[in-house]
């Protein structure tokens, strides 16, 4: 199959890669760029392990064509720590709250946590849970992960502008 040249930045570095039109972003990141922090879990958009930020938005790289992110700015888990190697506060929080067990869901969770805190400085616990509900974790029961994200909230509470939140079943 004829290959297409695609260029994008990943974690601040520019890449030009020749990909087939049916190549998925997940596999290009992992196989072509060697960024294996982004994981395959189901390939069907069900588990959230493959989440990366594309132009600042969290997307599932297992359902994203590489050709469709031509020109995009992509951030993967490898790009969250600072250039000097020091960790992002959310990564520190995951370490401090024991929010890591096997570590396979961790990259996707951390990306989602980062995304939420960027959008909202002081999310409620319910908002945190809803933000990561598409990211499955089989080890932790989510408790320590939610606690880690809670611990990263800015101290000053911002007023919620959403009046009707979806709640968990029965919780009306």
């Amino acid at each position, binding site marked *: 199959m004829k290959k297409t040249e695609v260029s994008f930045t990943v974690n601040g570095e520019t890449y030009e890669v020749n990909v087939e039109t049916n190549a998925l972003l997940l596999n290009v990141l992992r*196989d072509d760029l060697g960024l294996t922090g982004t*994981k395959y879990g189901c390939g*069907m958009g069900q*588990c959230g392990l493959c989440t990366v930020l594309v132009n600042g938005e969290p997307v599932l790289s297992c359902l994203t064509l590489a050709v469709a992110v031509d020109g995009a700015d992509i951030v993967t888990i490898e790009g969250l720590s600072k250039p000097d190697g020091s*960790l992002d506060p959310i990564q520190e929080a995951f370490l401090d709250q*024991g929010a890591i067990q096997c570590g396979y869901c961790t990259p996707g969770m951390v990306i989602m946590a980062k995304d939420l805190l960027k959008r909202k400085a002081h999310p409620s616990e319910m908002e945190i849970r809803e933000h990561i509900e598409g990211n*499955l974790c*089989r*080890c932790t029961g989510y408790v*320590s992960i939610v606690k880690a994200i809670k611990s990263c909230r800015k101290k000053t509470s911002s007023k919620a502008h959403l009046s009707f939140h979806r709640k968990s079943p029965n919780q009306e």
Partner: protein
Amino acid sequence: MRGQSMEKKNFSTVGKTTRRKDGVSKVTGREIFSSDVVLPHMLYARVLRSPYPHARVVSISTAKAEAMGAVCITPADVPKLRYNERQVSIPEKTYRDRTVLPDTARHVGEGIAAVAAKTEALAEKALVQIAVKYERLSAVFDPFEAMTADAPTLYKDVLLGEVVLPINRNIACHREVSEGDAEKGFQEADLIVENEFRTGRVYHQQMETKAVVCRPEPDGGITVWPTAQSIHNVRQLLGRIFKIPLSKINVHRVPIGGSFGSSIQMNTCIAICVALALKARKPVKLVLTREEDMYDHCKYPSIIRLKYGVKRDGTIVAGEMKTVVDIGAHNIQAYPLLGCMSGWFVSLYRMPHLRFEGTAVYTNKVPACAMQGYGNPQVSFAVESLMDIIAEKLNMDPIEIRLKNYVGLGETFWGQGPTVRSVIRSCGVEEMLLKGKDMIGWESRKKPEEKRGRLRRGIGVARSFHTSGTGAPMPGEVIDYSTAMVKFNEDGSVDCLTALMCHGGGTLEALAKIVSEETGVPLSKVEISPADTRSTGYDVCTHATRGVYCGGASAQRAAKEAKSKLLQFASRILEVNPDALKIRPDEELGQGIVYLEGAKGKAITVGEVAKTAQIKSWGTAISVVSHRQVNCPPCFVTNFIEVEVDTETGQIRFVKAVAAVDAGTVINPDLAAGQLEGGLCRGMGLALLEDTEYDPKSGELTCGRNITDYKIFTSVEMPMTDDVLTFFAATYEPSGPLGAKGIGEAANNCTAGAFANAVYNALGIRFNELPITPEKVLTRLKEYSLRKRGK
């Protein structure tokens, strides 16, 4: 309390929350799992899987695939040795029924051929070009139907050890255990209660699908990076199947993306990958897709008929459990499973007279293997449900009947089956029940009939335990020992090397802490070395909740011996009797300090000692130890669960939980709490959500379309973080490393039972069949109100 010897110790790092050593690599995406391993000139593999539940492979043509440049293997290309992928039982108790690629597929998804090619896309194209001719055979999916005379049979015979064992009526194995005289016991009882309980065929859904990379070496050997709980068992089995000396097989320990028992065995994809790599003479990588993984393994489902005879005061006098386990197409470890199920049953509550009967049956389904608890969540669900039924009949408090009958301190425990018996030396059962009772608000718990309205809350309790490993005073049917090496480096830091595995719960972290505590070297200077089979002694496996208790004990012993050598060196420098020397950690210096108590000036850092010993050619303070625990202490666990049932939709909301474990000395408090929390979530899955069903026509999983249709709970179904309470019983296990026992599997063993009891408390309806889905709740509520109206 029934009293216990609590040895108070001042630990420098054990029991304190510290950052896990593998945390940074995991949180930055730099941890390399098997699926991330990349080698030069590596090929990608795909497996051709049977679309039929039972079919003989008549012929396979790989010509077209090979013409595309793919390397192919079929049953004709692989060794014919019949093997069992699990290597934990002694050989004469190991049932062997499978080959690398079988010529008869016995479940949908069984691999019958495989390809490797330069890219995954090419492998996929080649795979489609393989032509297979099948002769379809009739299949059976129901275990009771399978045991009838005219049912289709999966096997004519299997091997038990080296002996050919004919298989009749698809019965893979059968076990009976009895003590006392059950008939007599039931005659003595004032009340006999009996019920049947069923649990689902849960899929492990570890987040990393099984994976393996294999590199053939120029010397005829192989190097393997597998998803595995035991690298040594993988090596031994590969050596036997492919007739390669073990000295030429190196299996690396690779971080695992969750296991829950799914990789206790040498995964079948490993042997397939090795066969491909040997034929291709190039490295091959094989990573299962999610749908393949779903067709690879599942939890043992159970049908349990349970009967207790009790006195009017609640004392149990007799018990009987009969279970039928539908093991699917392969017997991976059904024989020890049945032994354990008898043990779980016998060791929960005291019974002078008991009888157990277990039958494992082959069906044309995905093979079942160990999953967190190994039959214990199933047994505990039945027993704890029946305890509540008995309590209600006797008008007793559910906690009271448990306190009256539990097997505790000083009593014999044989959780791992009849051959693994030991005496209980630490027990926090009472503490957990009484403290948990206060924390959940047990006193305000109302009876079901007092509840009104659409949303009804209920509180349930259940208790259980798990073993800590499978050690025992006498060797049994299960192999259990660990090997560890500890050495002092020339700068005063310490290396610890072991084949033990961490599944995420912090096993190796615990080992580092134990070694730090024992050597007196600060935790920051103790590291767990990367491990492979060439550099480590045998370790059975991280399974059976044995990591800390058994593996930790071997590391502790190695540390002790290495330390004694170091003190010999120190004694030469300090001119002090080595037995008088001690080591304490100095966090600021980042060193252990060797010192003589009360003598100023008689002190030196561990680094100086080790360096001096090296320069003067005295040697290295190093020790390797193989260690078997002679005990098998239960780690007890208790759950209090509060639910809210919507009587209009049947939905059950998880409101609050109190989860407690008696793990002896708790080494990593945050990680231990994390295990309890994870156990709650998976236990809730078993209780309310998870099961796999089969289409009786096609033999396919009805949820086989990936995890789109196999759901596990998400972050929103767990209670608010403030409502998930965990605590540890204050106990000390005399036989454990620094007083520790296990925790792992125990964490989810009683959760399903507590849920069933909570739902009963909310509705007054007992669910004996898991999962308790909204559909079932609504159906039962309808029957219930019709029955009430009928009265």
